[in-house]
Structures are given as structure tokens and as C-alpha cells.
């Protein structure tokens, strides 16, 4: 059951032991939630008719949607009254339009929320529609609308569903806990995906530093011939789409292509559970598991948090920040987004809230490149980070493009491994942005 190892990658300190054994505990719904209208990759949503200041909504009520295919609707995560609709701080770093709901404390479900029936009675189309209506997006952090991935173009035959339980980001344990606590929901959601896609089999990839999760899921799939569990080597970024698909199926997603080009669709374990909740209970995606951790957090925890809860409230629920906290990150330490303060909401893609202290944050000065090639060895998509970064610094974006800068998915391995502390990933990001800008013109 052990499988191939992908080339490249790094072995950072994982720090997962802090929260790995802590069961997920539901956090009390906050008095006010801030629900951004953009929580996914794709078109932002617009408030639905009747969703205006002063309107009464119940928990689970759809409050915003878009007519665009690549988008996912947004639901109220508490019952209460809409207080304001205005731009609010967002993990992406700029204010984004948000619906602010004041909770009435009753936490009542909307009447529309009801189970969808058994999986056998649902057609592939029903499943896709349910997933869309529940506002489910990829919960690994990329937040790509899940129904889009379940609707491949007819000429692309999907035969394998790959489930991502790698959780390769250091510190984070949200997926780990979900796998331990909700194995049956993962398997059920996976079966729904298989049905929606007409796939033949599925494989759940889990890094071997989570042997308990591997055991639990192997038990959960007993008797399911279609589904297998793959034990993966622990290495960052094992959970990246291309790496995960390569080691679990042996297939290589082409440069510039998508998993469906090699007959694969890839979803996160949390997404599978969300799909199960949508089918079994009719519940839309209004809460998620968030790992709150890092040396700057007084009482680290895995919390079940309502979408729209402010990060500051989540941190308060974990005993607050230590005084030597220097960095606040939404997501993991390798790909997460640093925030200037905690006044922003948890969104569907918030897998972690990480507080790093003066002991973890590297502030050393940058040294010249000594051409050690460690970034090249670390790049999981075989790019030349130091050359692309150099091109970017000299504004030679055509050269950066020729060096396949656009193949970079910003895993951060190059910057991580650089002894000279050159911000390679950041420079490549600049190159990518400039190349895309030039393409649009």
C-alpha cells in the first residue's frame, strides 16, 4: 500500500503534535458574523433578493449567489438580523463586500434545510446540484467550487477520484482530526463523488505521519472494493494536486493542464464530509474545522467554527495571543496569508489560524545567491527558482515565462530551502502576475 515518492519537496518542522490529539470542539456561535461574498475561486456572489439590512434570516438560508458557473452560493451561519452590508477585511488582504448578521442567539435552522434522501435515489445531476446549492468549495484551502470539479466536460472521462488526506502543511491538524472523527462521512461523501463522476475507483492519500488516520480509514473502507487508502511518504507538498495524483495513481498532470486531463478528480477529506452533510442532512457549508495553533496561541485547539466568525474571537476562545507574537497567518505556514491584525472573518477556506512568535519568524537579512541549487532540488515541478527570481528582479518577464514561471503553484519550497534567505517564491509571484498582465493586454 506504500507508494511512490515525488521528486523535490522539503521537510520542515511539523509541529503537529501540539494539536493532533485534540478532538474537534464546536466553538460557540459568535454574536455577530461577517460573511464575505467571495469565499471561493471564481465569480463573487451578489446578495439575493430580500437580503438587505434589517432582513431576518435563519441559519442555513442562502443569502448570496452568482449566475456564474464557477462560483458557490453563500449561506447564513447564524439566525438573526442583517445589520450591514459593507466591505470588510478579508484573508486575501483587501476589503471585500460582506453581509454582517447579528445573531438572535436562537441558532434556528431555516425551514428549507432537510435531508435529500438516500444516495441510491439520487442521480449524478442531483448530487451536483446539491453540492452547488450547499455552497461547497474545496476545503483544503484552495476553495475551488466543488460542483465544478464534479462536472467534467463530457469528453473527459474520469475514472479515479483522489481524496487528499495528506495535510502536508506544517502545524495544521484539521484534516487529521476529521479523518479520525468522521471516517464514515468521508467514505459516504466519496461514494457520492464517485457516483456524480461515474468513476471506477477512488483512493484516499494520507501521509504516514498520521498512521492512526490510515488505520481508521482502512477500517471504514472495509468491504468497499472501489476504495483504497494509500500511505504516503511525509514530505511537503505531498498534498499538492499534481504530487498527490502522481504518487497515488502514477499519472502526471500535464504542464498547464488539470487533473481531469489524466482522468482524475481530486478533493479534500473535509470536502467529502461537507458533501455528506449536504446529502444526509441538507446542511449547507456554514462551518468548518480550523486548527488554531502556533507558539503565539495560549491554548491551541481544533475548533469547529462558523463561517464569518472573526479571527479575533477565535483567538480569544483559545486564550488569546502571547505578547511575543509577531505574525498572524490564515492557513498554514508554507502557503497561508499573513494578516496585519485579527479583525477579519473565518471563511470557507480557513484551515488554520497560526500565530508565530519572535522565535519562529525569520528576520535575517538577505544574502547573495550562492548558487547552491537547493531551491532547484526542492522545486516539486522542476523549475529553476533562482533563475526565474533573477529574471523577475531585472523585470525580464519574457525570460521568466520561458523558464515556465506559470507552472509554479507557489508551494514555497524554494524560499524555505534558500540559505541566502532570498524571497524566491515572492519574486516568482511577481513574475507570474506580470506575465498574466501582459497576456491580457
Amino acid at each position, binding site marked *: 500500500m506504500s507508494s511512490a515518492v515525488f521528486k523535490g519537496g522539503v521537510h520542515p518542522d511539523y509541529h503537529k503534535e501540539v494539536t493532533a490529539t485534540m478532538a474537534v470542539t464546536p466553538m460557540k456561535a459568535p454574536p455577530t458574523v461577517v460573511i464575505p461574498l467571495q469565499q471561493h475561486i471564481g465569480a463573487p456572489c451578489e446578495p439575493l433578493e430580500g437580503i438587505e439590512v434589517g432582513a431576518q434570516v435563519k441559519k442555513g438560508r442562502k443569502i448570496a449567489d452568482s449566475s456564474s458557473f464557477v462560483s458557490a452560493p453563500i449561506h447564513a451561519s447564524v439566525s438573526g438580523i442583517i445589520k450591514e452590508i459593507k466591505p470588510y477585511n478579508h484573508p486575501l488582504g483587501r476589503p471585500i463586500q460582506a453581509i454582517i448578521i447579528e445573531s438572535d442567539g436562537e441558532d434556528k435552522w431555516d425551514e428549507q434545510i432537510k435531508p435529500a434522501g438516500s444516495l441510491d435515489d439520487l442521480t449524478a445531476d442531483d448530487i451536483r446540484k446539491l453540492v452547488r446549492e450547499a455552497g461547497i468549495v474545496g476545503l483544503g484551502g484552495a476553495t475551488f467550487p466543488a460542483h465544478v470539479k464534479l462536472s467534467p466536460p463530457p469528453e473527459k472521462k474520469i475514472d479515479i477520484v483522489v481524496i487528499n488526506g495528506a495535510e502536508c502543511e506544517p502545524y495544521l491538524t484539521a484534516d487529521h482530526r476529521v479523518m479520525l472523527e468522521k471516517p464514515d462521512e468521508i467514505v459516504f461523501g466519496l461514494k457520492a463523488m464517485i457516483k456524480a463522476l461515474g468513476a471506477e475507483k477512488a483512493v484516499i492519500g494520507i501521509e504516514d505521519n498520521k498512521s492512526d488516520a490510515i488505520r481508521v480509514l482502512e477500517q471504514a473502507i472495509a468491504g468497499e472494493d472501489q476504495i483504497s487508502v494509500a500511505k504516503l511518504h511525509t514530505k511537503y507538498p505531498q498534498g499538492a494536486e499534481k504530487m498527490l495524483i502522481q504518487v497515488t495513481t502514477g499519472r502526471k498532470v500535464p*504542464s498547464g493542464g488539470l487533473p481531469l486531463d489524466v482522468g482524475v478528480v481530486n478533493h479534500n477529506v473535509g470536502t467529502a464530509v461537507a458533501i455528506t452533510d449536504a446529502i444526509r442532512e441538507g446542511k449547507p457549508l456554514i462551518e468548518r474545522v480550523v486548527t488554531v495553533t502556533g507558539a503565539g496561541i495560549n491554548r491551541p485547539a481544533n475548533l469547529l467554527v462558523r463561517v464569518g466568525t472573526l479571527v479575533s474571537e477565535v483567538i480569544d476562545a483559545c486564550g488569546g495571543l502571547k505578547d511575543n507574537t509577531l505574525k498572524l497567518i490564515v492557513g498554514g*505556514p508554507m502557503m497561508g496569508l499573513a494578516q496585519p491584525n485579527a479583525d477579519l472573518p473565518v471563511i470557507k477556506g480557513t484551515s488554520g489560524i497560526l500565530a*508565530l512568535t519572535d522565535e519562529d519568524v525569520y528576520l535575517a537579512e538577505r544574502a547573495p545567491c*550562492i548558487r*547552491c541549487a537547493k531551491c532547484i*532540488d526542492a522545486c516539486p515541478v522542476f523549475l529553476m527558482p533562482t533563475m526565474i527570481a533573477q529574471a523577475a528582479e531585472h523585470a525580464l518577464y519574457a525570460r521568466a515565462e520561458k523558464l515556465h514561471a506559470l507552472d509554479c503553484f*507557489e508551494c514555497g519550497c524554494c524560499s524555505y530551502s534558500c540559505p541566502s534567505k532570498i524571497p524566491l517564491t515572492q519574486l516568482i509571484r511577481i513574475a507570474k502576475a506580470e506575465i498574466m498582465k501582459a497576456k491580457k493586454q
Partner: protein
Amino acid sequence: MDNKMIVSSSPHIRTIESVQSVMTDVLIALFPAALMAVLLFGYKALLTMVIAVVTAMAVEALWLRKRDLYSDGSAAVTGLLFAMVLPPAPPWWLVVIGAASSIIIGKQVFGGIGYNIFNPALVGRAIVVMSWGARMVGPIWSQPQPFAFTTDINAVTMATALADQQEALSYSFANLFIGTIPGCLGETSALALLLGGAWLYYKGHIDWRIPGGYIGTVFLFGLLFGGGFYGGSFGTGLFHVLAGGVMIGAIFMATDMVTTPVTATGKLIFGIGCGLITMLIRIWGSMPEGVTFAILIMNSVTPIIDNFTIPKQFGGVKKSA
């Protein structure tokens, strides 16, 4: 909660490795060879190394107007490597001039660490060999005398076991491997150099392709064209690997990060190229040894090698830039 946090682009964690830690690892890797040099050639070897290292560090600190003598450690590495490829007892001023040239002409005039084209230690060596060639063949090449630390070694010999095939036969494989043969002060002990190489490999600072390509090519070339004088063609191949500067060149000089290719294929090409040029000089050239110039010549083509060996990206089909 309104205290402002540091905002920067991901990733937010970094390896603890730094330029200084890498350079310190190289110094640690050179320790066995330095120790062997002192054991074999006595206090003068130690003196030579100390003068070279101190000169290199001082010249760099002066050039950069920095008070930190060790700084990123690269000057100490250059100084020690330069000493390693000197005769066991050279005049002190030659060591000073060579070490200073290594830092100034080999490195700083190009813009300092990371920007130099040629291996600085070998630039220093090339300069002293070219400028004082006569002094490099005189009675400064001591016959190694293990554990004769404080005695002045009077027995003198040729510059390298490669110089005379008849004399070469008086050294066994054990001599060649342990290092009790004539040669530069740090190059004779294959054992000590391999220990250092193993450390660098373990720390991930060198790739097998450069030393592998280099040593493999030298061995094959010696086997095919060495004339079989040293106990048959296989033995002659091995002789060419162990006698002279191939071991120190392949493990420490040709693996210098700044002046050698960064791509995997490029590293292999670089190693093979060094091996070929070394053997061309040794067998058909006018000098008994060719490691210095082999590596310097290959240094000059490093950017070209890199450009032609950029790997195909993940899932890529077209040939790349």
C-alpha cells in the same frame, strides 16, 4: 488585538540553514584533510594553513570594510582550500600573496560571494604557480613523515606522485589511500577527503554527480590510456584517481557552489568535463598535473552548461528555454 503584525509573502518559515552554516559545514568537512596534512607534513603545514586562512579573512574584511572577520565564513573556506593545494612548506609571502589574490582577484573584483566566475582558491593557486613556478618545484616538497610534527622535514621529493612513473611504483595503494605520498599538503589523503565528502553529502551541500562524473572519468581514462604502468590498466586507472589532486578537486573544488552548474545534468557534464581535461593534461600535456586548470576551464563554461541543461518542468512536453 490591534497591535500590528508582520505581513509578508509566504512561506512564513525558513530553513535554519544559512550561507554561514553552509560554509562552516565545508570547514568541518575539510578538518580531516587538514589534520592529515599536519600529521604528514608537520608544523609547517599547520603554519601554511593558518597564514592562508588569516590572510583571506583579513583581506576580505578590509575589502568589505567589515569588522566581522569570520562573517559568512566563505573567506575562511577559500583560505583553507588555497592552503590545501600548496606545497607543504612554501615561503610565507607566497602564501600571503596567493590567499590575498584568491580573495581579491578570485572573488571580490567580480562582486563578492555568489558573483565570481572562477573558483577563488584555484585562482590563487594558478597565480602563484604561474608567477613563481620555479619556487613551486624546488625543495619545498617534503617527503611525508607521519607524526613528525615538530621536526623539520629534510627529505625532499617531487611535487606529485604523478611526476615520475618509476618512483610512483614505490607507493602502494595503501600509501595512496592514506596519503603517505608526495603532493600538496591537503591533497594526498584520499581517506580524509572522502570523510569530508561524506559529511558534505550527508548535509546535502554536494551532489554525487560532480565528484562521481569527475572521478569516474579520470578512472576510465586512466584505465584506457594510462599505459597500465601501475599494476595493469585497472590499477593505473585507480592510481590516477588517488595520486595527485583529483580527490580534493572532485570533492571540494569542482563542487564549489558558486562556480559550478546548478542543474543536475549540468553537474554531471561539469564533472565529466573536469575529468577529461585533467587527463588530457596529465597524459598528453606538458604538466604532470591538470586538476587546477581543468576546473578553471570548466568554471568558465558553467553558465553555458546551465542554460543548455534546464530540466523539463513537471508534466512538460516541449523542450525548455
